[in-house]
């Protein structure tokens, strides 16, 4: 049975498992479980269903499991095959601390790496096989897990080497860049200096740190500072399949679109991180005259500047 779409992986089975394994439960407690783990209207559909199940008994206002055991579903074949497949991924070693390879020996992988080709992935991705890269990743991961500072020797893009103390807060991975970055709080003399984003591949060494930091870490407000103040607004024309191409390509961004039936154009607002502005700009340039940037004013100025410069180069 190799299907991805099955009730045994479904949300309702998961909720019922939770209910029988934690019984007896009151209606309110069950509602809380359903609201937390189910879909928005699951309470309405699932609650009456519970009373019809022969392995659940309602008495004295509580729901009791009539099962003899707690339910723990074994791992399925497709899950094992997926584990085997990911174990063959070059990035898997980054996480393979206590892993016993022999446990997956006789399992057929769900897919092989060679069955996929990522043809436009950047060629300067991280060296996941590198012993030191793996060592650094694991140390950063452990520091992130335990919220402990580490001393990092880092080479910035201009080649300058810095030594600072950080508490790693979150990893970020990009399949396009094929790189790990991580956000970290920079600590000095027990104080939080700022949050930074470091490239895993630029780390030269990671050591234990004698720094301490007792305060709270909250990355979100720092990241929110990078949200664009105004979205870029573009008008996309029904030419060279541009609307479809544009919509798929920009589907990783938060956006809001309107389609005008009369002009067959689509107007879209794209919300982006300020640090990604150039990336958005060149992505939009790649669409050529099949779209027009309408705003923001600042973004439009940047866009026009490039076109003007190019036009002048053509005119000679």
């Amino acid at each position: 049975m190799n299907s991805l779409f099955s009730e045994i992986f479904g949300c309702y089975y998961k909720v019922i498992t939770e209910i029988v394994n934690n019984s007896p439960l009151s209606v309110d407690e069950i509602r809380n479980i359903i609201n937390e783990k189910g879909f928005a209207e699951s309470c309405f559909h699932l609650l009456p269903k519970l009373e019809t199940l022969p392995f659940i008994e309602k008495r004295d206002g509580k729901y009791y499991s009539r099962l003899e055991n707690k339910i723990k579903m074994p791992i399925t074949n497709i899950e094992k095959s997926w584990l085997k497949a990911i174990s063959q991924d070059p990035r898997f070693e980054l996480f393979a601390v206590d892993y016993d390879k022999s446990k997956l020996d006789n399992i057929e992988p769900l897919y092989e790496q060679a069955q996929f080709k990522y043809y436009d992935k950047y060629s300067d991705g991280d060296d996941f096989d590198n012993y030191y890269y793996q060592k650094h990743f694991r140390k950063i991961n452990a520091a992130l897990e335990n919220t402990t500072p580490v001393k990092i020797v880092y080479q910035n893009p201009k080649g300058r080497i810095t030594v600072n103390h950080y508490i790693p807060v979150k990893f970020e991975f990009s399949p396009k860049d094929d790189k790990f970055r991580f956000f970290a709080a920079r600590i000095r003399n027990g104080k939080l200096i700022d949050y930074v984003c470091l490239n895993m591949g630029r780390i030269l060494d990671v050591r234990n740190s004698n720094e301490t930091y007792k305060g709270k870490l909250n990355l979100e407000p720092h990241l929110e500072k990078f949200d664009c103040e105004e979205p870029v607004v573009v008008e996309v024309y029904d030419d060279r399949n541009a609307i479809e191409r544009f919509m798929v390509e920009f589907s990783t961004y938060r956006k809001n679109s309107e389609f005008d039936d009369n002009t067959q154009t689509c107007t879209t607002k794209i919300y982006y991180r300020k640090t990604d502005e150039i990336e958005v700009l060149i992505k939009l340039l790649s669409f050529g005259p099949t779209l027009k940037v309408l705003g923001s004013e600042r973004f439009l100025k940047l866009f026009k500047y490039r076109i003007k410069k190019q036009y002048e180069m053509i005119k000679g």
Partner: protein
Amino acid sequence: MSEYSELIKNFSRIRDYMREFFVFGFKTRNDFNQKSKRTYDNERRRIENYLGDLTKWEYGDGGKKVFISVDSSKIPVNPFYKAYKSKSFTDNDVILHFLILDILTSNDRLTLDEITDLINDRVEFLFEPQTIRNKLKEYTEYGIITATKEKKAHYYSLNKCYFEDFGISNDAINFFSEVAPFGVVGSYINDRIDNKNKKFQYKHNFIVNTLEDNIMLDIINAIKQQKRVIIENYSNRDNVANNFNILPLIIYVSVQTGRRYVIAQGRGKYRFSVYRLDYIKGVKTLEKDDNFTQLKQTLESCFETSFSTALVREGKPEHFEMTLFVNEQTEDYIIKRLEREGRGGRVEKLRRNIYKYSNDVFDTNELTTWIKTFIGRVVELSGDNKKVINLFYDDVKKMAEMYGGGDE
């Protein structure tokens, strides 16, 4: 008229609506005219139920539009996995699931008759042995149950193997469930072990692609077995469904544009054909094709002279050159861009601040979108395909006109 249910039997319809709401997000109820209004209302309601606050709506000139608004770099888990967790089931399915797992937890191994007796002791009606046998067979195929034969009797036991037995870290499951193919399987494991992602976020992650994973799994299985398939191919562009009998060779993924393809033995004059996975609505597996290995080898050799999906043309590759202005003092990142994005192209310095990128590809047309990302610094384009080169210059002129002659 059937009653509304939160769960669904068939994945394909919710897949279509979710994709429309997320990728396009501008269509109103009236635009979904292939199915009834009631179907639209039900699918919209389900998607709202599954995705909660990520589903938004707005009134515009054409009416109320529903859309899924999400920045994929800000979410810990792919929300579309929820669609895979919405499969409907019968009363018998759910009763047998829990009773079989419970009974086989208490008993090391049992025959069908013993299981049937124990189940029927616990229910007010009687299950036929055949119904229970079917469920046991299904669960054996899932790998949840092991069936063994001893003398003439079949014994069933719980396959007591759990994720924890493999020693694989929860971090690995969190990471690969978002970046590896068929990541939804990782999310099933995460559900079971109550593992939540707090460590990772993902940039340039095309989360909507998971909606084609069912289709991709059928194709991957065919590739493994070197079998042909019939695909039901439906393109939004021409609104036409076609069935193609193909020999799939590889899944071809663009991490920049979010498109995923299957490359197959070609039709007509083309050596290889390329099909978008999101256009495929169904897959039917056929017989093994002995040409697989040889075709795969030929395909591999085509990759060297392909910039994107043009793996189809015979003959000599086209030469292409792009000369760029790069301020060496401040813009070395442009040189790095040429090297890492150039897909086998050569980068050389011609003189101070002037660099040349050159490549030999089947179809220069494939480079056009990439070339335009360098608008503002292209000194010269040259090569065998004049049409593509002229198109670039024409496009720049058009853009200059669009933005007021570039004079602002």
